[in-house]
Protein backbone atom coordinates (compact mmCIF):
# COMPACT_ATOMS: atom_id res chain seq x y z
CA UNK A 1 0.00 0.00 0.00
CA UNK A 2 2.80 2.37 0.89
CA UNK A 3 5.27 0.97 -1.66
CA UNK A 4 5.76 4.45 -3.19
CA UNK A 5 7.27 5.47 0.12
CA UNK A 6 9.58 2.47 0.47
CA UNK A 7 12.32 3.57 -1.89
CA UNK A 8 12.88 7.11 -0.52
CA UNK A 9 12.63 5.84 3.07
CA UNK A 10 15.17 3.13 2.30
CA UNK A 11 17.44 5.71 0.69
CA UNK A 12 17.22 8.02 3.71
CA UNK A 13 17.82 5.12 6.09
CA UNK A 14 20.83 4.08 4.03
CA UNK A 15 22.27 7.63 4.04
CA UNK A 16 21.79 7.97 7.81
CA UNK A 17 23.39 4.58 8.38
CA UNK A 18 26.38 5.48 6.19
CA UNK A 19 26.77 8.85 7.96
CA UNK A 20 26.64 7.24 11.41
CA UNK A 21 29.24 4.67 10.33
CA UNK A 22 31.51 7.46 9.13
CA UNK A 23 31.09 9.31 12.43
CA UNK A 24 31.83 6.18 14.48
CA UNK A 25 34.90 5.38 12.35
CA UNK A 26 36.10 8.98 12.74
CA UNK A 27 35.66 8.91 16.51
CA UNK A 28 37.56 5.64 16.69
CA UNK A 29 40.23 7.13 14.42
CA UNK A 30 40.60 10.12 16.75
CA UNK A 31 41.61 7.99 19.73
CA UNK A 32 43.52 5.08 18.16
CA UNK A 33 46.74 5.09 16.13
CA UNK A 34 47.83 5.95 13.52
CA UNK A 35 47.17 9.64 14.15
CA UNK A 36 48.34 12.07 11.48
CA UNK A 37 49.46 14.93 13.72
CA UNK A 38 50.73 17.29 11.06
CA UNK A 39 47.39 16.99 9.22
CA UNK A 40 45.59 17.89 12.44
CA UNK A 41 47.77 20.98 12.92
CA UNK A 42 47.29 21.93 9.26
CA UNK A 43 43.50 21.63 9.55
CA UNK A 44 43.41 23.68 12.77
CA UNK A 45 45.24 26.37 10.84
CA UNK A 46 43.11 26.11 7.68
CA UNK A 47 39.74 25.81 9.38
CA UNK A 48 40.48 28.01 12.38
CA UNK A 49 42.83 30.83 11.46
CA UNK A 50 41.67 30.71 7.84
CA UNK A 51 38.12 31.51 8.96
CA UNK A 52 39.12 34.31 11.32
CA UNK A 53 38.46 37.24 8.96
CA UNK A 54 34.98 36.13 7.96
CA UNK A 55 34.06 35.42 11.58
CA UNK A 56 35.41 38.78 12.82
CA UNK A 57 33.44 40.69 10.18
CA UNK A 58 30.26 38.67 10.77
CA UNK A 59 30.40 39.24 14.52
CA UNK A 60 31.21 42.91 14.22
CA UNK A 61 28.42 43.81 11.80
CA UNK A 62 25.85 41.55 13.46
CA UNK A 63 26.46 43.19 16.84
CA UNK A 64 26.37 46.64 15.30
CA UNK A 65 23.14 45.96 13.41
CA UNK A 66 21.60 44.39 16.50
CA UNK A 67 22.39 47.45 18.62
CA UNK A 68 21.04 49.76 15.94
CA UNK A 69 17.78 47.80 15.58
CA UNK A 70 17.13 47.19 19.24
CA UNK A 71 18.01 50.82 20.09
CA UNK A 72 14.96 51.99 18.15
CA UNK A 73 12.67 49.49 19.90
CA UNK A 74 14.09 50.19 23.36
CA UNK A 75 13.60 53.92 22.81
CA UNK A 76 9.83 53.34 22.74
CA UNK A 77 10.07 52.15 26.36
CA UNK A 78 12.72 54.65 27.41
CA UNK A 79 15.11 51.75 27.90
CA UNK A 80 17.91 52.73 25.50
CA UNK A 81 20.64 52.21 28.18
CA UNK A 82 19.76 48.50 28.22
CA UNK A 83 21.03 48.00 24.67
CA UNK A 84 24.19 46.33 25.99
CA UNK A 85 22.13 43.64 27.73
CA UNK A 86 20.28 42.78 24.56
CA UNK A 87 23.36 42.69 22.39
CA UNK A 88 25.37 40.52 24.77
CA UNK A 89 22.55 38.10 25.55
CA UNK A 90 21.61 37.70 21.87
CA UNK A 91 25.19 37.33 20.70
CA UNK A 92 26.36 34.90 23.38
CA UNK A 93 23.30 32.65 23.52
CA UNK A 94 22.05 32.56 19.97
CA UNK A 95 23.41 34.79 17.23
CA UNK A 96 27.11 34.25 17.87
CA UNK A 97 27.01 30.44 17.74
CA UNK A 98 24.47 30.19 14.91
CA UNK A 99 25.84 32.88 12.61
CA UNK A 100 29.42 31.73 13.13
CA UNK A 101 28.34 28.17 12.34
CA UNK A 102 26.50 29.30 9.20
CA UNK A 103 29.52 31.27 8.02
CA UNK A 104 31.73 28.25 8.71
CA UNK A 105 29.35 26.05 6.75
CA UNK A 106 29.74 28.34 3.76
CA UNK A 107 33.47 28.61 4.07
CA UNK A 108 34.79 25.29 5.34
CA UNK A 109 31.84 23.00 4.59
CA UNK A 110 31.98 23.84 0.90
CA UNK A 111 35.77 23.67 0.88
CA UNK A 112 35.89 20.25 2.51
CA UNK A 113 33.21 18.81 0.20
CA UNK A 114 34.95 20.20 -2.89
CA UNK A 115 38.38 18.99 -1.82
CA UNK A 116 37.31 15.47 -0.84
CA UNK A 117 34.93 15.27 -3.81
CA UNK A 118 37.76 16.13 -6.22
CA UNK A 119 39.94 13.52 -4.57
CA UNK A 120 37.20 10.91 -5.04
CA UNK A 121 36.58 11.63 -8.73
CA UNK A 122 40.30 11.70 -9.54
CA UNK A 123 40.88 8.37 -7.72
CA UNK A 124 43.12 9.99 -5.10
CA UNK A 125 41.04 8.46 -2.30
CA UNK A 126 41.49 5.01 -3.85
CA UNK A 127 45.19 5.80 -4.27
CA UNK A 128 45.39 6.57 -0.55
CA UNK A 129 43.76 3.25 0.29
CA UNK A 130 45.99 1.39 -2.16
CA UNK A 131 49.02 2.97 -0.47
CA UNK A 132 47.84 1.65 2.88
CA UNK A 133 46.33 4.84 4.32
CA UNK A 134 42.85 4.93 5.79
CA UNK A 135 41.21 8.03 4.23
CA UNK A 136 39.01 8.50 7.30
CA UNK A 137 42.01 8.76 9.61
CA UNK A 138 44.00 10.87 7.20
CA UNK A 139 41.29 13.22 5.92
CA UNK A 140 38.19 13.11 8.14
CA UNK A 141 39.67 12.88 11.64
CA UNK A 142 41.90 16.00 11.38
CA UNK A 143 39.00 18.01 9.94
CA UNK A 144 36.57 16.72 12.57
CA UNK A 145 38.93 17.65 15.42
CA UNK A 146 39.56 21.07 13.88
CA UNK A 147 35.82 21.69 13.48
CA UNK A 148 35.10 20.46 16.98
CA UNK A 149 37.63 22.74 18.70
CA UNK A 150 37.92 25.71 16.37
CA UNK A 151 34.18 26.40 16.08
CA UNK A 152 33.88 27.27 19.83
CA UNK A 153 37.07 29.37 19.67
CA UNK A 154 35.78 31.27 16.65
CA UNK A 155 32.38 31.69 18.28
CA UNK A 156 33.95 33.33 21.33
CA UNK A 157 35.81 35.73 19.03
CA UNK A 158 32.61 36.40 17.09
CA UNK A 159 30.71 37.07 20.33
CA UNK A 160 33.34 39.54 21.50
CA UNK A 161 33.39 41.29 18.12
CA UNK A 162 29.58 41.48 18.17
CA UNK A 163 29.58 43.07 21.61
CA UNK A 164 32.30 45.47 20.42
CA UNK A 165 30.25 46.31 17.30
CA UNK A 166 27.26 46.94 19.55
CA UNK A 167 29.36 49.31 21.68
CA UNK A 168 30.41 51.31 18.61
CA UNK A 169 26.75 51.86 17.65
CA UNK A 170 25.60 52.38 21.26
CA UNK A 171 28.35 54.92 21.97
CA UNK A 172 28.41 56.92 18.73
CA UNK A 173 24.89 56.50 17.31
CA UNK A 174 22.66 55.90 20.31
CA UNK A 175 24.77 58.11 22.61
CA UNK A 176 24.83 55.53 25.45
CA UNK A 177 27.84 56.01 27.70
CA UNK A 178 30.58 53.39 27.52
CA UNK A 179 30.46 52.65 31.24
CA UNK A 180 26.73 51.99 31.11
CA UNK A 181 27.03 49.82 28.02
CA UNK A 182 29.83 47.62 29.39
CA UNK A 183 28.20 47.21 32.80
CA UNK A 184 24.90 46.21 31.19
CA UNK A 185 26.73 43.72 28.96
CA UNK A 186 27.85 41.70 31.97
CA UNK A 187 24.71 42.29 34.08
CA UNK A 188 22.50 40.05 32.06
CA UNK A 189 24.84 37.16 31.43
CA UNK A 190 24.49 34.17 33.73
CA UNK A 191 26.88 31.27 33.79
CA UNK A 192 24.17 29.07 32.21
CA UNK A 193 24.10 31.43 29.22
CA UNK A 194 27.83 31.05 28.81
CA UNK A 195 27.50 27.26 28.95
CA UNK A 196 24.83 27.39 26.31
CA UNK A 197 26.91 29.68 24.12
CA UNK A 198 29.91 27.40 24.41
CA UNK A 199 28.27 23.99 24.11
CA UNK A 200 26.37 24.79 20.93
CA UNK A 201 29.47 25.54 18.80
CA UNK A 202 30.96 22.14 19.66
CA UNK A 203 27.87 20.47 18.23
CA UNK A 204 27.75 22.81 15.22
CA UNK A 205 31.44 22.45 14.41
CA UNK A 206 31.17 18.67 14.58
CA UNK A 207 28.07 18.63 12.36
CA UNK A 208 29.41 21.04 9.72
CA UNK A 209 32.61 19.07 9.22
CA UNK A 210 31.23 15.54 9.40
CA UNK A 211 28.36 16.37 7.02
CA UNK A 212 30.79 17.99 4.56
CA UNK A 213 33.20 15.04 4.79
CA UNK A 214 30.37 12.56 4.29
CA UNK A 215 29.02 14.41 1.26
CA UNK A 216 32.51 14.88 -0.18
CA UNK A 217 33.47 11.22 0.18
CA UNK A 218 30.25 10.09 -1.51
CA UNK A 219 30.79 12.28 -4.57
CA UNK A 220 30.24 10.69 -7.94
CA UNK A 221 29.86 11.94 -11.48
CA UNK A 222 33.04 13.89 -12.24
CA UNK A 223 33.40 17.65 -11.91
CA UNK A 224 29.63 18.13 -12.11
CA UNK A 225 29.36 15.80 -9.12
CA UNK A 226 31.89 17.90 -7.21
CA UNK A 227 29.78 21.03 -7.76
CA UNK A 228 26.69 19.17 -6.64
CA UNK A 229 28.45 17.83 -3.54
CA UNK A 230 29.58 21.34 -2.61
CA UNK A 231 26.03 22.66 -2.83
CA UNK A 232 24.64 19.72 -0.85
CA UNK A 233 27.31 20.17 1.84
CA UNK A 234 26.38 23.83 2.34
CA UNK A 235 22.62 23.24 2.27
CA UNK A 236 22.70 20.13 4.47
CA UNK A 237 25.22 21.71 6.83
CA UNK A 238 23.14 24.87 7.22
CA UNK A 239 19.94 22.93 7.83
CA UNK A 240 21.76 20.67 10.30
CA UNK A 241 23.03 23.72 12.20
CA UNK A 242 19.60 25.37 12.40
CA UNK A 243 17.87 22.12 13.39
CA UNK A 244 20.57 21.24 15.90
CA UNK A 245 20.26 24.73 17.37
CA UNK A 246 16.62 24.07 18.20
CA UNK A 247 17.20 20.64 19.71
CA UNK A 248 20.35 21.58 21.61
CA UNK A 249 18.60 24.67 22.99
CA UNK A 250 15.67 22.54 24.14
CA UNK A 251 18.02 20.11 25.81
CA UNK A 252 20.17 22.78 27.47
CA UNK A 253 17.18 24.75 28.74
CA UNK A 254 15.94 21.52 30.33
CA UNK A 255 19.35 20.47 31.61
CA UNK A 256 21.07 23.60 32.91
CA UNK A 257 18.46 26.21 33.81
Amino acid at each position, binding site marked *: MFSFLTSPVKQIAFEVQAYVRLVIASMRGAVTPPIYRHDIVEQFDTLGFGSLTVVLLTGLFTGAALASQTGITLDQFGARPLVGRLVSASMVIELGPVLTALMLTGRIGSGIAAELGSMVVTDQINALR*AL*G*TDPIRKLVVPRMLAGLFMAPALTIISDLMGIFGGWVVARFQLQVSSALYWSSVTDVLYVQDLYQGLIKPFVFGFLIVTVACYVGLRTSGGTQGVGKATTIAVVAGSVAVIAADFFVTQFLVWAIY
Partner: protein
Amino acid sequence: METARDILNEPGAPVVLFDRVQLAFDEKVVLRDLSFTLLKGHTKIILGASGSGKSTILKIITGLLRSDAGVVWVNGQRVDQLTEAQLMDVRDDLGLIFQEGALFDSLTVRENVGYKYYEETDMPLEQVDARVKEVLGFIGLVEHLDKMPSELSGGQRRRVAIARAMAFKPRILLYDEATTGLDPITAITVNDEVIKLRDLEGVSSIVVTHQLRDAFYVATHMAVRDASGQVRVVPATPEKCEEAEFIMLKDGLICFEGTAEELRHATDPYLQTFLS
Protein backbone atom coordinates in the same frame (compact mmCIF):
# COMPACT_ATOMS: atom_id res chain seq x y z
CA MET B 1 59.09 -27.48 6.94
CA GLU B 2 58.19 -25.28 3.97
CA THR B 3 55.88 -22.39 4.89
CA ALA B 4 53.37 -20.60 2.66
CA ARG B 5 55.80 -17.64 2.44
CA ASP B 6 58.60 -19.96 1.30
CA ILE B 7 56.33 -21.37 -1.38
CA LEU B 8 55.38 -17.86 -2.52
CA ASN B 9 59.05 -16.94 -2.81
CA GLU B 10 59.71 -19.76 -5.26
CA PRO B 11 59.73 -18.89 -8.99
CA GLY B 12 56.40 -19.66 -10.62
CA ALA B 13 54.43 -19.59 -7.35
CA PRO B 14 50.83 -18.37 -7.69
CA VAL B 15 50.77 -14.81 -6.33
CA VAL B 16 47.27 -13.84 -7.50
CA LEU B 17 44.47 -16.34 -7.91
CA PHE B 18 40.88 -15.66 -9.00
CA ASP B 19 38.49 -18.56 -8.57
CA ARG B 20 35.00 -18.15 -10.05
CA VAL B 21 34.77 -14.50 -9.12
CA GLN B 22 31.49 -12.72 -9.73
CA LEU B 23 30.53 -9.07 -9.41
CA ALA B 24 27.49 -7.03 -10.40
CA PHE B 25 26.55 -3.39 -9.92
CA ASP B 26 22.77 -3.42 -9.46
CA GLU B 27 21.45 -5.08 -12.62
CA LYS B 28 24.71 -4.87 -14.57
CA VAL B 29 26.85 -7.99 -14.30
CA VAL B 30 30.50 -7.01 -14.67
CA LEU B 31 32.30 -10.26 -13.85
CA ARG B 32 30.31 -13.42 -14.49
CA ASP B 33 32.59 -16.27 -13.53
CA LEU B 34 36.21 -15.26 -13.69
CA SER B 35 39.14 -17.54 -12.90
CA PHE B 36 42.82 -17.01 -13.60
CA THR B 37 46.22 -17.25 -11.90
CA LEU B 38 49.20 -14.91 -11.99
CA LEU B 39 52.51 -16.64 -11.37
CA LYS B 40 55.46 -15.01 -9.65
CA GLY B 41 57.58 -12.96 -12.06
CA HIS B 42 55.07 -13.39 -14.86
CA THR B 43 52.88 -10.84 -16.62
CA LYS B 44 49.15 -11.10 -17.18
CA ILE B 45 47.81 -8.72 -19.81
CA ILE B 46 44.07 -8.15 -19.57
CA LEU B 47 42.39 -6.93 -22.73
CA GLY B 48 38.80 -6.04 -23.34
CA ALA B 49 36.44 -3.36 -24.51
CA SER B 50 35.63 -0.34 -22.34
CA GLY B 51 33.38 -1.34 -19.44
CA SER B 52 34.31 -5.01 -19.70
CA GLY B 53 35.53 -5.09 -16.09
CA LYS B 54 39.28 -4.84 -16.60
CA SER B 55 39.89 -2.11 -14.00
CA THR B 56 37.40 -3.80 -11.68
CA ILE B 57 39.71 -6.84 -11.50
CA LEU B 58 42.57 -4.65 -10.23
CA LYS B 59 40.32 -3.03 -7.65
CA ILE B 60 39.22 -6.47 -6.40
CA ILE B 61 42.86 -7.57 -6.09
CA THR B 62 43.72 -4.51 -3.99
CA GLY B 63 40.52 -4.83 -1.96
CA LEU B 64 39.17 -1.48 -3.13
CA LEU B 65 36.11 -3.41 -4.33
CA ARG B 66 34.64 -6.63 -2.99
CA SER B 67 33.45 -9.42 -5.22
CA ASP B 68 29.91 -10.76 -4.78
CA ALA B 69 31.07 -14.38 -4.98
CA GLY B 70 34.18 -16.42 -5.60
CA VAL B 71 37.59 -16.55 -4.01
CA VAL B 72 40.50 -14.14 -4.45
CA TRP B 73 43.96 -15.01 -3.16
CA VAL B 74 46.77 -12.46 -3.16
CA ASN B 75 50.20 -13.45 -1.83
CA GLY B 76 48.66 -16.31 0.09
CA GLN B 77 45.87 -14.29 1.71
CA ARG B 78 42.14 -14.44 0.91
CA VAL B 79 41.48 -10.76 0.27
CA ASP B 80 37.75 -11.28 -0.27
CA GLN B 81 37.43 -12.10 3.44
CA LEU B 82 39.75 -9.50 4.96
CA THR B 83 38.67 -6.34 6.75
CA GLU B 84 39.89 -2.93 5.57
CA ALA B 85 42.48 -2.89 8.38
CA GLN B 86 43.73 -6.38 7.48
CA LEU B 87 43.95 -5.39 3.82
CA MET B 88 46.58 -2.77 4.66
CA ASP B 89 49.19 -5.52 5.10
CA VAL B 90 48.27 -7.11 1.76
CA ARG B 91 48.52 -3.70 0.07
CA ASP B 92 52.11 -3.30 1.30
CA ASP B 93 53.07 -5.84 -1.34
CA LEU B 94 50.89 -4.38 -4.10
CA GLY B 95 51.43 -1.32 -6.26
CA LEU B 96 48.51 0.04 -8.26
CA ILE B 97 49.04 2.51 -11.09
CA PHE B 98 45.75 4.28 -11.73
CA GLN B 99 44.33 5.19 -15.12
CA GLU B 100 45.07 8.92 -14.82
CA GLY B 101 47.93 8.53 -12.35
CA ALA B 102 45.86 9.69 -9.35
CA LEU B 103 48.82 11.67 -8.01
CA PHE B 104 48.09 13.77 -4.93
CA ASP B 105 47.80 17.19 -6.50
CA SER B 106 48.67 19.11 -3.33
CA LEU B 107 51.95 17.24 -2.87
CA THR B 108 55.22 17.56 -4.79
CA VAL B 109 56.68 14.74 -6.88
CA ARG B 110 59.03 13.95 -3.97
CA GLU B 111 56.14 13.77 -1.49
CA ASN B 112 54.02 11.70 -3.87
CA VAL B 113 56.74 9.14 -4.53
CA GLY B 114 57.80 8.92 -0.88
CA TYR B 115 54.22 9.16 0.43
CA LYS B 116 54.08 5.75 2.03
CA TYR B 117 57.46 6.18 3.74
CA TYR B 118 56.67 9.71 4.94
CA GLU B 119 53.20 8.88 6.24
CA GLU B 120 53.19 5.23 7.20
CA THR B 121 56.72 4.51 8.44
CA ASP B 122 59.27 5.94 10.88
CA MET B 123 62.08 5.78 8.35
CA PRO B 124 64.52 8.72 8.76
CA LEU B 125 63.88 11.50 6.23
CA GLU B 126 67.37 11.20 4.70
CA GLN B 127 66.74 7.55 3.92
CA VAL B 128 63.31 8.32 2.45
CA ASP B 129 64.85 11.02 0.27
CA ALA B 130 67.53 8.62 -0.89
CA ARG B 131 64.90 6.01 -1.82
CA VAL B 132 62.77 8.63 -3.62
CA LYS B 133 65.78 9.77 -5.65
CA GLU B 134 66.70 6.15 -6.42
CA VAL B 135 63.22 5.39 -7.71
CA LEU B 136 62.94 8.62 -9.69
CA GLY B 137 66.37 7.92 -11.11
CA PHE B 138 65.14 4.50 -12.27
CA ILE B 139 62.38 6.15 -14.30
CA GLY B 140 64.54 9.11 -15.34
CA LEU B 141 62.67 11.92 -13.58
CA VAL B 142 65.00 12.82 -10.75
CA GLU B 143 65.26 16.45 -11.93
CA HIS B 144 61.50 16.91 -11.35
CA LEU B 145 61.74 16.12 -7.64
CA ASP B 146 60.27 19.37 -6.35
CA LYS B 147 57.69 20.01 -9.05
CA MET B 148 53.96 19.78 -8.48
CA PRO B 149 52.03 17.16 -10.52
CA SER B 150 50.29 19.96 -12.44
CA GLU B 151 53.68 21.03 -13.82
CA LEU B 152 54.33 17.62 -15.40
CA SER B 153 53.28 16.29 -18.79
CA GLY B 154 50.81 13.39 -19.04
CA GLY B 155 53.60 10.87 -19.65
CA GLN B 156 55.66 12.20 -16.77
CA ARG B 157 52.66 11.96 -14.44
CA ARG B 158 52.18 8.28 -15.38
CA ARG B 159 55.86 7.61 -14.75
CA VAL B 160 55.69 9.35 -11.37
CA ALA B 161 52.65 7.19 -10.61
CA ILE B 162 54.74 4.12 -11.44
CA ALA B 163 57.54 5.46 -9.23
CA ARG B 164 55.09 5.98 -6.35
CA ALA B 165 53.72 2.46 -6.76
CA MET B 166 57.18 0.83 -6.88
CA ALA B 167 58.80 2.96 -4.14
CA PHE B 168 57.80 0.59 -1.33
CA LYS B 169 59.23 -2.34 -3.33
CA PRO B 170 55.99 -4.29 -3.86
CA ARG B 171 56.23 -7.73 -5.41
CA ILE B 172 53.13 -7.23 -7.55
CA LEU B 173 52.41 -4.21 -9.75
CA LEU B 174 49.01 -3.58 -11.29
CA TYR B 175 48.83 -1.19 -14.24
CA ASP B 176 45.43 0.29 -15.08
CA GLU B 177 45.58 1.69 -18.63
CA ALA B 178 49.03 3.12 -17.92
CA THR B 179 49.53 4.23 -21.54
CA THR B 180 46.02 5.30 -22.55
CA GLY B 181 45.99 8.79 -24.00
CA LEU B 182 49.76 8.98 -24.38
CA ASP B 183 51.60 9.53 -27.68
CA PRO B 184 53.42 6.44 -29.04
CA ILE B 185 56.90 7.62 -28.01
CA THR B 186 55.86 8.35 -24.42
CA ALA B 187 53.85 5.11 -24.32
CA ILE B 188 56.99 3.16 -25.22
CA THR B 189 58.87 4.93 -22.40
CA VAL B 190 56.16 3.85 -19.94
CA ASN B 191 56.14 0.31 -21.41
CA ASP B 192 59.91 0.12 -20.99
CA GLU B 193 59.47 0.93 -17.29
CA VAL B 194 56.95 -1.90 -16.97
CA ILE B 195 59.37 -4.30 -18.65
CA LYS B 196 62.37 -3.15 -16.59
CA LEU B 197 60.48 -3.55 -13.32
CA ARG B 198 59.40 -7.04 -14.29
CA ASP B 199 62.74 -8.28 -15.58
CA LEU B 200 65.22 -6.44 -13.39
CA GLU B 201 63.28 -6.15 -10.12
CA GLY B 202 61.41 -9.48 -10.39
CA VAL B 203 58.00 -7.85 -10.04
CA SER B 204 54.89 -9.81 -11.09
CA SER B 205 52.59 -7.62 -13.18
CA ILE B 206 49.02 -7.38 -14.30
CA VAL B 207 48.64 -4.95 -17.20
CA VAL B 208 45.15 -3.78 -18.02
CA THR B 209 44.86 -2.07 -21.37
CA HIS B 210 42.97 -1.84 -24.61
CA GLN B 211 46.04 -0.58 -26.44
CA LEU B 212 47.07 -3.66 -28.40
CA ARG B 213 50.34 -2.19 -29.57
CA ASP B 214 51.45 -1.60 -25.97
CA ALA B 215 50.18 -5.00 -24.83
CA PHE B 216 52.19 -6.84 -27.49
CA TYR B 217 55.24 -4.65 -26.82
CA VAL B 218 55.26 -5.58 -23.12
CA ALA B 219 54.65 -9.26 -23.91
CA THR B 220 57.35 -9.58 -26.56
CA HIS B 221 60.20 -7.54 -25.09
CA MET B 222 62.55 -8.04 -22.20
CA ALA B 223 65.03 -5.91 -20.28
CA VAL B 224 68.67 -6.95 -20.06
CA ARG B 225 71.66 -5.38 -18.38
CA ASP B 226 74.76 -5.55 -20.56
CA ALA B 227 78.37 -5.90 -19.39
CA SER B 228 78.73 -2.14 -18.93
CA GLY B 229 75.69 -2.10 -16.63
CA GLN B 230 73.56 -0.37 -19.25
CA VAL B 231 69.91 -1.50 -19.31
CA ARG B 232 68.46 -2.25 -22.74
CA VAL B 233 65.01 -3.38 -23.81
CA VAL B 234 65.32 -6.03 -26.51
CA PRO B 235 62.95 -8.53 -28.21
CA ALA B 236 62.18 -11.34 -25.78
CA THR B 237 63.36 -14.90 -26.13
CA PRO B 238 60.60 -17.49 -26.82
CA GLU B 239 60.88 -18.69 -23.20
CA LYS B 240 60.41 -15.15 -21.90
CA CYS B 241 57.42 -14.64 -24.23
CA GLU B 242 55.78 -17.65 -22.54
CA GLU B 243 55.82 -15.74 -19.24
CA ALA B 244 53.44 -13.11 -20.56
CA GLU B 245 49.89 -14.32 -20.92
CA PHE B 246 46.92 -12.52 -22.44
CA ILE B 247 43.37 -12.61 -21.12
CA MET B 248 40.53 -11.24 -23.23
CA LEU B 249 37.33 -10.32 -21.40
CA LYS B 250 33.93 -10.39 -23.01
CA ASP B 251 30.58 -10.15 -21.22
CA GLY B 252 32.20 -10.75 -17.84
CA LEU B 253 33.89 -13.94 -18.96
CA ILE B 254 37.32 -14.85 -20.28
CA CYS B 255 36.94 -15.50 -23.99
CA PHE B 256 40.66 -16.05 -24.63
CA GLU B 257 43.69 -16.96 -22.54
CA GLY B 258 47.07 -17.54 -24.10
CA THR B 259 50.40 -16.13 -25.25
CA ALA B 260 50.98 -13.28 -27.71
CA GLU B 261 51.64 -15.80 -30.47
CA GLU B 262 48.41 -17.68 -29.77
CA LEU B 263 46.45 -14.43 -29.71
CA ARG B 264 47.89 -13.36 -33.06
CA HIS B 265 46.69 -16.63 -34.62
CA ALA B 266 43.30 -16.75 -32.91
CA THR B 267 40.40 -17.45 -35.25
CA ASP B 268 37.56 -16.30 -32.99
CA PRO B 269 35.62 -13.56 -34.84
CA TYR B 270 35.44 -11.30 -31.74
CA LEU B 271 39.21 -11.56 -31.23
CA GLN B 272 39.85 -10.90 -34.89
CA THR B 273 37.64 -7.80 -34.75
CA PHE B 274 39.50 -6.65 -31.65
CA LEU B 275 42.88 -7.28 -33.26
CA SER B 276 42.03 -5.65 -36.59
